[in-house]
């Protein structure tokens, strides 16, 4: 009993920082409130009110974004600014996602309502759909600021659970349910894996606190002083593997194509960004507990972890790319390419923050930047698919899906066509589009970390990727429209087109702001002052590894 009381005391003693934490969560709180509002609005008998769901979500996201930008740094985190930065990114991409998701559910039902004038709240899913989406985004935001394993676990689950539902209800076709089932079951298995990993991490360190202010016990501090130990290592690796389900990395990638294909395009776009970002944020946090302070030059992860990530990265890129080549469905192809892109980003994780203090060598910044680029270009590509529909079986509209469906898009619909072309080229990493700079950033960081072989693998993979991205360009730009592809018209939901077009524009325009954005990612992953001291200790190392110096 005594101990319990002590523990309680400790808990209460922690209450003060807990309260302080609230100040970091304004954005999440706003989103949560919006979630509730949306859920209620969705049940309104007034069609106009129901239609407000999207608007409210957008407003909430904008507010959340602004609040996120104002989030004070969390000084005890290894990267105090990351959460605030990512919240803004999430809000920005989130807005586009909301725009894209407009009209995904309830279309048939709304028509029925319009005809009959009778509304049954039980049959409407609009409210939940938006709510789930906002929930997921909330979870994502929470993930970025997690400083405790429990928090991290909950945030990750909050990100994922709604998406299971979204996938299932995004389309009334059986494929949606199949996708939902696969996603859910495999996701649960992945969750179990990282949960077990978390348990082991806790076991190894005796605490669930990932990071704490100096002088307090945290997993990071325990690992720093005692080393990982076998259990810590196993726990960390299991956690990494489990979390890599979110980013669709090999070997947890199997679900990706099926789920993306089965879900509506807009939801696929959502899946390709939100869980992926959550996964990368979680990985960054988890890896930060051991830190990139190992190896000969004190700038890499522990060997075992590094090798695991290395294998995963190489495999992920390759598997994603080679499978993407074979696809006939654009959605499926984009799904596999999404796997490949995770592989690229894993390279940045391996590179870590670098030890020269130079932004170009900062792999984590590169990951964040790439994630940002990927968010836009991927959204644009899926958005084009979501914007094209034709009347399908049973009066339900079908979205464009295969290469044949988008043939001659530039001719029939220049806006969407060029959106597709630009996004495809950017995904390919073709200069001077945004994707190229993302990839270049990863290159510089990986080379700085000495991962030259991985860079070459990445280069070859980029070339393989050209096989299928080029097909996308050929289909939409070069090929003549066919009767089949002409059957597809632009969706009634203008916001989808807008979202795609904005993404495509971002792919071009953000190049001009790339410098600023990179600076921001650099700030976001800038180490906390305490750790900066550690880094300065190894600052001199760069001079010695500079091979020119070594020569003399």
């Amino acid at each position, binding site marked *: 009993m005594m*101990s*319990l009381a002590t*523990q309680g005391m*400790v808990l209460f003693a922690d209450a003060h920082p807990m309260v302080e934490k609230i100040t970091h969560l304004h954005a999440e709180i706003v989103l949560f409130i919006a979630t509730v509002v949306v859920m209620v609005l969705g049940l309104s008998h007034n069609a106009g009110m129901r239609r407000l769901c999207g608007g409210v979500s957008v407003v909430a996201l904008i507010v959340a974004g602004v609040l996120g930008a104002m989030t004070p740094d969390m000084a005890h985190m290894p990267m105090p600014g990351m959460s605030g930065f990512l919240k803004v990114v999430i809000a920005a991409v989130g807005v586009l996602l909301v725009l894209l998701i407009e009209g995904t559910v309830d279309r048939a039902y709304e028509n029925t309502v319009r005809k009959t004038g009778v509304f049954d709240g039980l049959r409407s899913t609009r409210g939940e759909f938006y709510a789930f989406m906002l929930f997921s985004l909330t979870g994502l935001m929470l993930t970025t600021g997690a400083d405790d*394993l*429990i928090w991290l*676990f*909950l945030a990750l*689950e909050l990100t994922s*659970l709604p998406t*299971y*539902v979204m996938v*299932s209800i995004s389309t009334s076709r*059986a*494929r949606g*349910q*199949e*996708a*939902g*089932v*696969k996603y*859910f*079951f495999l996701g*649960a*298995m992945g*969750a*179990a*894996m990282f*949960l*077990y990993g*978390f*348990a*082991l991490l*806790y*076991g190894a360190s*005796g*605490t*669930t606190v990932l990071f704490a202010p100096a002088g307090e016990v945290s997993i990071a501090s325990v690992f720093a002083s005692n080393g990982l130990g076998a259990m810590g290592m196993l726990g960390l690796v299991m956690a990494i593997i489990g979390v890599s389900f979110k980013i669709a990395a090999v070997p947890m990638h199997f679900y990706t*194509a*099926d789920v993306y*294909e*089965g879900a509506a395009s807009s939801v696929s776009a959502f899946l390709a960004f939100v869980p992926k970002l959550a996964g990368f944020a979680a990985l960054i946090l988890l890896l930060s507990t051991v830190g990139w302070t190992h190896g000969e030059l004190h700038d890499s992860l522990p060997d075992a972890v590094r090798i695991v990530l290395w294998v995963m990265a190489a495999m992920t890129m390759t598997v994603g790319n080679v499978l993407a080549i*074979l*696809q006939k469905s654009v959605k*499926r192809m984009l799904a596999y390419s999404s796997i490949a892109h995770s592989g690229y980003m894993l390279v940045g994780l391996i590179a870590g923050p670098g030890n020269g203090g130079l932004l170009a060598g900062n792999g984590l910044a590169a990951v964040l930047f790439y994630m940002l680029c990927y968010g836009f270009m991927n959204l644009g590509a899926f958005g084009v698919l979501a914007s094209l529909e034709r009347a399908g079986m049973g009066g339900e509209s079908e979205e464009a899906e295969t290469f044949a469906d988008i043939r001659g898009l530039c001719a029939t619909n220049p806006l969407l066509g060029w959106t597709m072309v630009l996004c495809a080229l950017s995904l390919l990493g073709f200069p001077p589009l945004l994707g190229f700079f993302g990839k270049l950033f990863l290159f510089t960081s990986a080379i700085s970390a000495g991962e030259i072989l991985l860079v070459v693998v990445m280069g070859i993979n980029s070339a393989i990727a050209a096989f299928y991205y080029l097909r996308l360009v050929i289909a939409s730009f070069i090929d003549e429209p066919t009767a089949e592809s002409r059957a597809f018209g632009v969706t009634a939901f203008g916001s989808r087109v807008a979202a795609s077009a904005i993404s495509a524009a971002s792919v071009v325009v953000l190049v001009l702001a790339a410098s600023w954005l990179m600076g921001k990612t650099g700030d976001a992953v800038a180490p906390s002052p305490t750790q900066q001291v550690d880094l300065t200790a190894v600052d001199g190392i760069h001079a010695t590894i500079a091979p020119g110096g070594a020569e003399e």
Partner: protein
Amino acid sequence: MHLLADSMVMGQVTLAHYLLLSAGLFAIGMIGFLTRRNLIIMFLCTEMMFQAAGLALIAFSRYHMNHTGEVFVIFVLTIAAAEAALALALVVLCFKRRESLDASAWSELRG
């Protein structure tokens, strides 16, 4: 301190045993997941994996003599409950469409 001593006095049952049990549970869950075709059973297997982790957490909690692990388990249970709700809803939905709970009935998406 004495709690640690207590746990020593508890006899032969040590942390290692709990961990073995939890690992076994996890393995059984996983194997079950892989071998059973029924969606509900499969879901239960994932639950088993969750609980394996929960067991480990409690054991560690005891071992480290703090309650964080136990708190964690409570959250895990909550999540598991949420997942159960989700799972059952999904299973019902699937059953409605296919009249079957066989997981392999859902393999239209592939390649």
